[in-house]
């Protein structure tokens, strides 16, 4: 009896890390070679789009790939990390919404909300989820291995 895993093979994690490192290197090289104002806005926008998509793909590969030995305890750690991430994301979105609402009231003297907020949250959501979930999962895994040594 075996539960089918929806995670990608461990190799995808390596591909994800390679893409992530490549992205950082390209970003640094771009800054060194071109600075901020040496290429057109159109090119900068295209580059930003490509970088954003590459970042999402690399994080997708890193977060949703199996560990070398993926067993049920690791699955339970993943589930717990996902649970904590859900709590943090909900709280963060709630606080951000309240903060922006108060800010717009203070600035405009009306109950206007930021019209780009939902789009911004949509763009940030996959990155935010990955950045919270993966370190939390790795931390739990490391803590579990450390407890083993004690």
């Amino acid at each position: 009896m075996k539960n089918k895993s929806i995670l990608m093979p461990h190799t995808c994690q390596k591909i994800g890390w390679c893409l992530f490192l490549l992205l950082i290197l390209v970003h640094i090289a771009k800054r060194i070679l071109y600075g901020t104002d040496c290429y057109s806005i159109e090119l900068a926008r295209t580059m930003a789009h490509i970088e954003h998509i590459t970042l999402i793909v690399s994080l997708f590969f890193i977060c949703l790939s199996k560990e070398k030995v993926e067993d049920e305890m690791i699955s339970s750690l993943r589930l717990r990390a996902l649970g904590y991430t859900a709590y943090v994301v909900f709280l963060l979105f709630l606080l951000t919404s309240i903060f922006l609402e108060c800010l717009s009231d203070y600035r405009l003297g009306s109950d206007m909300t930021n019209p780009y907020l939902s789009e911004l949250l949509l763009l940030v959501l996959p990155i935010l989820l990955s950045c919270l979930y993966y370190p939390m999962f790795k931390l739990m895994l490391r803590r579990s291995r450390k407890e083993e040594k004690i």
Partner: protein
Amino acid sequence: MKNTVRVERAIMDITQQQLADAIGVSRNTINSIESGRYVPSTVLALKIARYFGKPTDSVFQLDEND
């Protein structure tokens, strides 16, 4: 839930790694089960008991808090 995995392993004179390889889990999982930090699923408990050739309820028992 308490268990006698460590005792059974000592009787059979095998390492955590050997047991982990035989069952198909990581050594960390076996260690966590032995120290009571992780309660295995029914499938894993059955696999462990079968490996030791013992009934499942002689390897895994409910404790007072369960």
